[in-house]
């Protein structure tokens, strides 16, 4: 190595040290692209906070409990809304491929903030208050959710393939958008099927 090579070596080492020392300050000014994926989670758990014992065979007047949870991995605190909706088999479900929520009106809306990396979970207790059995069809008239009784008047036809009257309680995740100043469907939904045949 000649003197010129040594000079280059000194310069590179000095620049490396300068970068190491300046990096913490630079990171306060410049946002370096993070590799973490940004997303939200939505889940529904059974009464034991597992995924195996969801309420399915429903009886009128009996309370059922599930846990609904949301996880925030969006990089900052976020304002969410979970819409609780109820439908029969013929009513529309959210369309995730087109980012479209179900057009059904929500029975219940949870609004809450979550910090980045944190989660939120809430027990949801529901009960079928009034169900009418008609010939070849069934009419769910009222449902109680967290001690409030809602009129739903949702009819269902006999599902001959699965032998029952089926309904779905489902949850849509909405996220508050600061640019449009409104809640937008966040492409996340989960639901549980309920068999009202034996009610």
């Amino acid at each position, binding site marked *: 190595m000649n003197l010129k090579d*040594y000079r280059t070596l000194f310069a590179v080492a000095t620049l490396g*040290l300068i970068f190491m020392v*300046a990096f913490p300050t630079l990171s*306060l000014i410049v946002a370096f692209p993070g590799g973490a994926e940004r997303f939200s989670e939505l889940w529904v758990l059974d009464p034991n906070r597992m995924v195996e014992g969801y309420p399915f065979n429903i009886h009128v007047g009996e309370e059922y409990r599930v*846990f609904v949870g949301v996880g925030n991995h969006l990089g900052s*605190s976020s304002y969410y809304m979970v819409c609780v909706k109820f439908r029969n088999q013929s009513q529309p479900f959210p369309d995730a491929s087109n980012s479209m929520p179900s057009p059904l009106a929500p*029975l219940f809306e949870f609004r809450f*903030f*979550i910090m980045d990396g944190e989660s939120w979970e809430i027990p949801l207790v529901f009960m079928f208050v009034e169900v009418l059995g008609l010939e070849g069809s069934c009419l769910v008239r009222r449902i109680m959710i967290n001690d409030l009784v*809602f009129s739903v008047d949702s009819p269902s036809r006999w599902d001959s393939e699965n032998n029952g009257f089926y309904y779905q309680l489902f949850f849509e995740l909405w996220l508050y958008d600061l640019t449009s100043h409104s809640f937008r469907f966040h492409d996340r939904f989960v639901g549980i099927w309920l068999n009202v045949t034996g009610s």
Partner: protein
Amino acid sequence: MPACKSFLIFVLLFALALSIFPLEDCGADSGEAALAIKQAEDIMISCYPIVLKAESAGGNVSGLLARLNEAGVLLTQAHALYRLEDFDRAACFAELCSQIGGEVRVEAHELTRLAVKQATERLMWAMIRSILSITIIVSASFVSWRIFKLRYCQQISEMKPEVDSGES
């Protein structure tokens, strides 16, 4: 889950408070209840960018978010009661939500101010530290380069063959 626990504690405390101090009759009709709910929603929404600003400035917003979530529970109840046409209670819940939201908004502004001040101070000290460190590194590097160069030249000159006068 801590969020769930705190929510349950809040609901229990709220139910206890209601049993001791029942909600006053707000005497609201459908329009008034809708207006109260809209105001509560607006207050909640107006808190969000302030909280985000405080958070991005490095402030600890967990306390503010916990209180906003208390207000969110009230807003949830207000919406549900409105749907059930219980306008009186819906308006009362919405007004309580607005009250909490208003308090949070004031606290959030204060936290943002403090967080921005602290962040500016932090940045200033970090810059002073960095400039000092860079100056030391550059000076040390320059001095060591000079010393290295001097020794290198000395070594080279010592390695030069001696010139013989040629007289015998």
